[in-house]
């Protein structure tokens, strides 16, 4: 009749236990009975139960006391209290203590059937909810699908995320621009007990000086011209969740003081308000600058630095873990092909070789942009070298004073080398015809064999 809910009947009267046992067994439920709290606790230790039918009056530990133990031992179990002496007080007491429902003995057969069906359905929903939450948690903390890479550097970052996520510690994420600091912050938030609440991002570099207080702390109606309604600030929006300060080094000295006060006291006042507002948030900050140097130079408050620098995660630049480039590139090809409904599913050997020679000063973001562009322009299943944009390569001297002609000369030479001097493939990769390529080779005196 249902997917076999497990029912535990706890009652000191044997006739009641037997009657309910037979009644539920006929309906196909898995049912066991216990004559008192002690036996019930033993059965609760031995197995998981979906529904516990509990007599309120029992010798020794009564039903209400046992109920509180059940809530601790098996919070998933739905408890239904039974009593022969119904009173509003005991009903309220039972429901307040977390009982699912309350019935008076003797019970109408139809009412009992509906009650158990309803409780089974409720239990099933709770179970599904738990499973979905678990899947979400596993997805965020175990797999971290958005953080791609198997190099020791990236593995270390993932380990640190797992270590700190479950705590409430403030985290400072450092790394060059484009290394994925916000992704790391999101992975920490999703792996934390706060993941059901929002992660609110404050882009410090983008906060206009005049509006920074209003943005962070909110404002009351009439606090300033144009403040026609009360508005919550980022600290309030992050209540119960996480607030992420991106580019924390860019906040003004005044905002540093305000921020320090909020971090210390966890309370603040809305702009134009008088009542202190208390919120519960976790702080994650990120910067591409060396905050310690900024402190030495007097650009960043030392006390705030110490407040933020509780647990640091340093993300290595892409050039320090080149072994991840191909894995990341493949990941981005699949991601953008899916998003753009393209057929691309892999990268050609030449394109791979080229990606490995690039310097990636813009780190993962640059790689992602390059692949996104390639997926836009390519037509088949394979991303070709010619689909990729011109990137700063190790084979090209990165000297800004070099002329366009010099850049062209070095680039053509590097592509020729990549293609083992094959003019047809090089011309195709450069998106020029073979005659033009021959002319360039002659003009710059390029070598066709590496």
């Amino acid at each position, binding site marked *: *009749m249902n997917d076999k809910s497990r029912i535990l009947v706890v009652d000191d*009267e044997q*006739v009641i236990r*037997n*009657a309910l046992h037979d009644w539920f*067994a006929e309906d196909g439920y898995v049912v066991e009975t216990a004559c008192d709290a002690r036996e019930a606790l033993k059965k609760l230790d031995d197995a998981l139960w979906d529904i516990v039918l509990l007599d309120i009056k029992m010798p020794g530990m009564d039903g209400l006391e046992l109920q509180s133990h059940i809530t601790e031992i098996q919070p998933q179990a739905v408890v239904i209290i*039974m009593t022969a002496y119904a009173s509003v007080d005991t009903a309220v007491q039972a429901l307040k203590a977390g009982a699912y429902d309350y019935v008076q*003995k003797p*019970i109408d*057969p139809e009412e009992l059937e509906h009650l158990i069906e309803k409780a089974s359905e409720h239990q099933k929903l709770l179970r599904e909810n738990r499973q979905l939450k678990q899947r979400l948690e596993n997805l965020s903390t175990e797999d971290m699908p958005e953080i791609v890479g198997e190099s020791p550097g990236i593995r270390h970052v993932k380990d640190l995320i797992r270590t700190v996520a479950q705590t409430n510690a403030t985290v400072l994420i450092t790394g060059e621009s484009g290394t994925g600091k916000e992704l790391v912050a999101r992975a920490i938030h999703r792996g934390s007990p706060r993941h059901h609440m929002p992660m609110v991002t404050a882009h410090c570099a983008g906060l206009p000086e005049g509006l920074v207080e209003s943005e962070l702390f909110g404002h009351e109606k009439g606090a300033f011209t144009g403040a026609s309604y009360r508005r919550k600030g980022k600290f309030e929006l992050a209540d119960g969740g996480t607030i992420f300060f991106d580019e924390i080094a860019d906040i003004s000295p005044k905002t540093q003081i305000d921020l320090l006060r909020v971090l210390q006291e966890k309370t603040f006042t809305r702009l134009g308000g008088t009542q202190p507002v208390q919120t519960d948030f976790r702080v994650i900050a990120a910067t591409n600058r060396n905050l310690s140097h900024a402190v030495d130079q007097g650009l960043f408050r030392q006390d705030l630095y110490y407040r933020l620098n509780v647990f640091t995660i340093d993300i290595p630049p892409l050039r320090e873990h080149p072994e991840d480039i191909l894995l990341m590139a493949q990941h981005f090809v699949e991601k953008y092909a899916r998003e753009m409904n393209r057929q691309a599913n892999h990268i050609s050997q030449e394109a791979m070789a080229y990606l490995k020679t690039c310097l990636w000063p813009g780190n993962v973001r640059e790689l992602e942009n390059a692949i996104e562009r390639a997926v836009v322009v390519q037509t088949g299943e394979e991303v070709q070298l010619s689909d990729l944009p011109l990137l700063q390569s190790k084979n090209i001297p990165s000297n800004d004073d070099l002329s366009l002609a010099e850049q062209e000369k070095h680039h053509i030479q590097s592509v020729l080398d990549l293609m083992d001097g094959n003019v047809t493939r090089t011309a195709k990769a450069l998106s020029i015809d073979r005659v033009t390529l021959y002319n360039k080779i002659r003009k710059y005196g390029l070598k066709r064999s590496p």
Partner: protein
Amino acid sequence: MVCLHLLRLGAVPIKTVQIIAEGVEFYLGVTPIIHPDILDPDRAFDLDRGQYHATRLLENLEAFHQSPHERVLGLTEVDLFIPILTFVFGEARLNNPCALLSLRRLSPQFYGLPNNPNQTLHRAIVEAIHELGHTFGLLHCSDYRCVMHASRLADDIDLKGPGFCAECARHLQSQKLSPRITAK
């Protein structure tokens, strides 16, 4: 070969018992033996509730059970209860050879409606087969047309028929019975 005994607990017209016996024989494929003895249900009367304790009456029936191939069905017109529930139409335990059925709440008269003997008898046949089904190990069935579907109200009984669904019938066939399968 299964042997089924029909016993009366208190006054139940013999004609009623015979009609129920015919219905059981037709749908379950077992010929019942109607006992001339009438058991006294009064020892199971509960003064506080003004009803008869079904479990105690069921225990009385167990004395009539002799061999593993026998089943005993008690028929009564008294109102039955078990302590946890306000009433029961009947009682049987899974794989236990004895079952009990009360006609009291099957009659429309009990609910203040005009008497309808045919409807009462039809309900009695359906519930007798249902309780006997439990003695052969059948659980409540999710098919609302199957006689083994649970009925908590008298009206529920009218929704199902006296026949078995294919799955419940297979279970009984495995015990060498010839049940009728309900029409779809």
